């Protein structure tokens, strides 16, 4: 039954991804992506990575997508006239042929990597417990193990990433700040809509 669920979630996530690309309304795009993330979180869970599933929901779905929604609504994009042809009319544009080719190339390469690699666990191993990796004996649980690694071996990247977050916070504030007259660097009128 878990297998069937996996395939269902996989199909749904693909459909949602396609929806991200093809839908017109930006909010529809965001919601579609959100749905895709939920499906992926389920898949993570099924594969035994509970911590990641939680992180995915909390951070990706709960923070990043919310941020996207905020910005869209801030800029009032939904009410703007349609920016472009969407839907299948996307493919009528000039570059679309090359795009499809490149994307297809990427897909094929990925598949080829999978197919060609001898180490791929193409079949489940005979002695693998039906519950997946949870029942692997002698190993710490996922969260415990990850904490041990994170604050042990990967302490430096962890600290670096925290610095990165700090820098980002500062950068975002600076970038999105409405320009005061004294701070104006380039000539030009300020944004029409008052978006403080």
């Amino acid at each position, binding site marked *: 039954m878990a297998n069937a669920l996996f395939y269902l979630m996989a199909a749904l996530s693909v459909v949602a991804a396609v929806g991200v690309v093809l839908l017109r309304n930006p909010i529809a795009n965001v919601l579609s992506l959100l749905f895709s993330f939920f499906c992926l979180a389920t898949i993570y869970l099924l594969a035994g990575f509970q911590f990641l599933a939680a992180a995915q929901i909390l951070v990706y779905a709960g923070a990043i997508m919310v941020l996207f929604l905020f910005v869209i609504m801030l800029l009032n994009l939904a009410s703007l006239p349609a920016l472009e042809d969407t839907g299948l009319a996307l493919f009528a544009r000039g*570059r679309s042929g*090359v*795009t499809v080719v*490149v*994307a297809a*190339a*990427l897909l094929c*390469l990925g598949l*080829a*990597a999978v197919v*060609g*690699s001898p180490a791929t666990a193409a079949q489940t191993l005979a002695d693998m417990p039906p519950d997946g990796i949870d029942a692997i004996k002698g190993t710490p649980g996922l969260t415990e193990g990850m904490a041990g690694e994170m604050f042990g071996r990967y302490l430096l990247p962890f600290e670096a990433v925290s610095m990165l977050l700090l820098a980002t916070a500062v950068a975002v504030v600076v970038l999105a700040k409405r320009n005061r007259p004294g701070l104006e660097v380039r000539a030009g009128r300020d944004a029409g809509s008052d978006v403080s």
Partner: protein
Amino acid sequence: MNQIDLDWLWLLPALPLAGSLVCGILHYLTIRARLPQPAAHGAHGAHEADGAHGHAPMDAHGDAHADPHAHHDDHGHAAAPAGLSALAPWIAVAAMAGAFALAVKAWLGLRGETHALESSAWQWIDTGSFAIDLSMVVDRLSSVMTLVITGVGLLIHVYAAGYMRGDKHYAKFFAYLNLFVFAMLMLVLSSNLIGLFVGWEGVGLCSYFLIGFWYEKGWPAEAGQKAFIMNRIGDACFLIGSFLLVRLFGTLDLSDIVGAVSGVLADPERAHTLLLAGLFLFGGACGKSAQLPLFTWLPDAMAGPTPVSALIHAATMVTAGIYLTVRLNPIYAAHPELMFLIGLVGAVTALIAGSTALVQRDIKRVLAYSTVSQLGYMFIGLGTGAWAAAIFHLVTHAFFKALLFLGAGSVIHGMHHEQDMHKMGGLRRHMPRTFVTFVCGAAALSGLPLLSGFFSKDEILAHTFAQASVGHDPRYYVLWGLGIATAAMTAFYTWRMVALTFFGKERFDAAHAHVHESPAVMTLPLMVLAVLSIAGGVLGLPHVFGVQHLLAEWLEPVTRSGDALIAARGEHHLSAQVDWLLLGLGSVLAIGFAVLGFRAYRAGTARDERIATRSPGLQRFLGGAWGIDEAYYACIVGPIRTLFFLTSVVADQLIIDGAVNGTAAVARTCADRVRRMTSGSIATYGLWMGASVALIAWLFLRGGGS
């Protein structure tokens, strides 16, 4: 061979060389003085076919004619330069006179037992095993040639002083003329083949200068080029021949070669090399002496002034080939097939040229083809081993052909540059002295009995007949037949020329043309040459007259070895009866055809017009020397032009330049295309990034994914 060392022999060619230099300096001064003045007559188109009338401050020979047609020349220069360039003929004539005097002195010194006079050598190349000197030897043969060159040359220089008066480049002309004489003297006086070749090339070069003297008109320059290039082909053959001689004998000294020939004949391989050497040298002679196939430059060379045609293309340069052959006579005497070939080439050339002269309208072209024809006669003589006869004909031909050319020049001068005989007629009333002398020359050329040309021509034909009958070589009947036919044609076209020019009604407007006799400076040389043409036969009276053949005797030391080789193959002397018979046949033929030609054209050009209308094809064929020139253009010049086009346009411009420019264009186009990549469109950038990622991933996978 007895030799005496001379220390003044070098003066003989040095005098004309010095004259040339001085005239050259005079010319330079004249040009320089002319420069700052406003050029009132800048156009050179004023000079027409053959010189212009003009006033000159120095008119030393009393030409009393005022000239109302003085619009043709340059009165723009000041008096001083005109004075300077008027000095030029004096200097040139003085140089020639001095050379002639020295030639006479050398001739005097060669009588008796002395056979050669040698001058001190100047070492030119010394490589130990092979040394070349430039030394001069005058022997019996060279003395004859030298006398002809300097003597006839002197007369022509005097004539040219009057003919070229008023020309813009008066001094330059004499500089070139003297330079030519110097080169020709080097040719005949040199003791080895290298010095001879220096002179050989030198005369070719001066011929180019002088043919193209009026190069501003355009076609003389082309004619000069044509002459030079055809000569060049001959020169290449000459060089190959001399290489073979060096290989055979190890030396290029002429007397050494002549002495060593008989020693080579025993070995068949070396004899074969000797044959080839002779053949190639004959090829060189064909180029210089205008025989088949290298003769088409001579008629075109008539673009030069008439004294040039007289000196170079009648009396001297074209005789260099005959001189060379006689000088190396043992080489030819040793190979009867080669001799027959020489005779055949000469005979065929004589026939072609003679038939071409029948339909020419330009008086100078008649004489040009006649020259080619007579040179063919000389080669027929060489082909039968009649060395002395060939030289005899060379000498008499120099006399009467120079006379005819100078006379034609006088006619052209008097007719104000008209050269077309169809526009002449009845000139004997206007130009009596020219007429009389011209008739003398024509009589000699056509071989009327007892004149110089008669004896020389007949001697050659007699030798040919003897070779055929007594020598039991029936091939020579062909040569004899061709010679007879040519003699008939010669008489015909010669008197046709006389009739059209001097007799009949005047086909020009006598009232307006103002035809007049030439000044004394021009007619005096004509008269001297006329006397020589008439009386020159005494040099070579036939045996049956009971007297010595003076020239053959004189040249005996030179022709000894060749004669011996021929005699070894069998005597061939005609009996006295056959000799008289041939003399009579020759006389009848000459007189008969002369009368025919004269009467056909006495009334005017009607016969020519009839030929033109009834058989224009024949007219064209004959008029163009049997289409040989056209054949050259089609077969040689055409492909060379195509090759020129291929290399210069296709290979150079299209391919090479195209490649270079194309590379630049490709680089530019690529740069243009690539430049558009910086479109600023982020999506495009993204696309490129994606494609690059795909590429890297592919490479990674292919590489084994390490």
